[in-house]
């Protein structure tokens, strides 16, 4: 397969005598053509799904899976049960959660013009957790048009929190990014930790453990119906995001610039926050508290194909799915037979990455 590699800089400026050598290497960005990258990522997604299906407490080799798919050699009853009732729903869920968080991260980073905005940092995840806890504790049997009350309340919680954080950071027609991040962080912590009280007063005994696990970010095994509903919500949000990606490119120039170019800034902002909140809510209702996936994935995608959001949308979604499938497979197998919540794993991977970005940002944008 031919891979087009374009180096972006024609004449990198000479390295200053006391400058950082790392700065010079930033000029030599290697960028793939978007179409090639999307094809590569789709293939990678297929391979990742297969590998994730094959690994686990009971190993079923990819060969066996292939043979069964082609109808050569039927699976045993146990293998069938493990694959279709346990592993496949879980692997697909991990993919959905990863894609959802990564896309939400991409939307928030573009909207707030900041590479360290992420559904967790910005408060959207905390709000979704609080909403989902209310749903699980009080309305677990309710549903509206087949969508569980938990997901809907997670969405409401996320959107409301975003509105709160945003209004806190807004003064005199300008958004203070530092206030935004700190307010988001404080509220995210407050709301996600409020879940403790739901655990405390939960009377259902056994479910308590489910709630606790969910809060640490364990990807559960949903029913096929639950999975289909979540996938539908994700698809709706992702499709709704498509026409907004060009707008996001313009918003990156700043509010005033965007307005002077004919963008209705307020309504664009509300749409982006609602879509980001829906994506966060889908991810949270399936996987609980998983930090930093929405931070790392868009950043890596930007390194691969540059900051154009139109191209970033499919790349980020695919990369997010792959990333969390791999992370969840690791979480299942790293300390087998015990399982680490993937949320905990991500905290240890994402934390250092967040610090790295913070350092880098300090260098290029002094506030």
């Amino acid at each position, binding site marked *: 397969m031919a891979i087009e590699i374009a180096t972006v800089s024609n004449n990198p400026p000479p390295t200053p005598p006391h400058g950082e050598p790392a700065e010079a290497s930033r000029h030599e960005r290697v960028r793939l053509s978007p179409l090639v990258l999307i094809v590569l990522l789709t293939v990678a997604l297929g391979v990742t799904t297969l590998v994730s299906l094959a690994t686990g407490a009971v190993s079923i080799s990819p060969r066996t899976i292939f043979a069964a798919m082609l109808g050569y050699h039927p699976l045993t009853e146990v293998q069938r049960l493990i694959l279709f009732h346990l592993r496949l729903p879980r692997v697909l869920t991990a993919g959905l959660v990863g894609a959802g968080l990564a896309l939400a991260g991409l939307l928030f980073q573009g909207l707030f013009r900041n*590479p360290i905005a992420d559904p967790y940092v910005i408060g959207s995840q905390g709000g979704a957790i609080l909403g989902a806890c209310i749903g699980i504790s009080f309305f677990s049997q309710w549903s509206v048009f087949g969508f569980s009350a938990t997901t809907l309340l997670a969405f409401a919680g996320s959107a409301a929190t975003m509105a709160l954080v945003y209004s806190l950071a807004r003064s005199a027609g300008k958004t203070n990014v530092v206030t935004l991040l700190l307010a988001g962080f404080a509220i995210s912590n407050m709301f996600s930790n409020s879940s403790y009280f739901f655990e405390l007063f939960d009377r259902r005994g056994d479910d308590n453990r489910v709630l606790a696990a969910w809060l640490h970010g364990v990807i559960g095994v949903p029913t096929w119906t639950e999975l289909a509903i979540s996938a539908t919500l994700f698809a709706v949000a992702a499709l709704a995001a498509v026409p907004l990606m060009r707008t996001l490119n313009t918003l990156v*120039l700043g509010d005033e610039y965007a307005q002077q*170019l004919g963008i209705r800034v307020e309504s664009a902002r509300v749409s982006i926050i609602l879509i980001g909140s829906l994506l966060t809510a889908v991810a949270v209702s399936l996987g609980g508290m998983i930090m930093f996936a929405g931070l790392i994935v868009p950043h890596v995608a930007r390194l691969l194909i540059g900051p154009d959001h139109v191209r970033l949308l499919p790349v980020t979604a695919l990369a997010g799915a792959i990333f969390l499938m791999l992370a969840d497979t690791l979480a299942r197998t790293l300390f087998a037979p015990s399982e680490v919540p993937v949320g905990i794993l991500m905290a240890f991977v994402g934390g250092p990455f967040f610090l790295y970005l913070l350092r880098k940002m300090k260098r290029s944008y002094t506030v």
Partner: protein
Amino acid sequence: MSCLLRMEAVHFDYRGQKVLRQTTFDLEEGSCSALIGLNGSGKTTLLRIAAGVLRPAEGSVRLLGRPLEAIPLKEVARTVALVPQQLELPFAFTVQQVVEQGRTPYIGMLRGPGRNDRLAVDRALDLADVSSLRHRVFNELSGGERQRVKIALGLAQQPRLLLLDEPTQNLDIGRQVELIDLLHFLRAEGITILASIHDLHLVDKNFSTVLLLSPGQPLATGTPEQMLKPSILERAFQCPPDRHPLLIERAELYRKEAR
């Protein structure tokens, strides 16, 4: 010549401060005007009102005879382009990607940029003489290069009126001259220009009209000879006549002419 933009009795307050008072002026199509005035006298505010980004508290703004607030945002953006002082990008957009944003008022939400848009971007890059920078990352450019790229972004809007907020700020004298040449060139291409200029040395020979803003006073308009009199500048900039070389120089010039 027809009137492109007309402001009548425009008032604007910013955080309780009176910024614009009784601001009235006409911009003739094809003119090249300089907007001068001391810091905080409302130059940026006036440009933003002219671009439709800010609404005046009182008074009316008319673009080609129509009230500005009645014209859809996108249509305004196809007629007027504002080149602001600052553009900071959080991500590594290339010059071409930045200039492509100028096509926003022409592109629908779903339809991508077409042939016309690509041609307009190429032409804007050419006019502003930044074609050779098109694949460079915007944040890594020098101040003079950034200024040109911002102008190219404005030109991609294919405007009839180009508003520039302190385009010569932070440029060395060589880049200042290049920029003024670019403005002359654009004027020859039929684009009306209104630029706020801090350096009064650049105003004299290069602009057909001068708009002078003084705090709390109505806007004054005239030719450079009329407006750059030491007596007027002294009052408008609250500067003692014998302290700044520009005022001393202008005083000598007018004395010579009087003789």
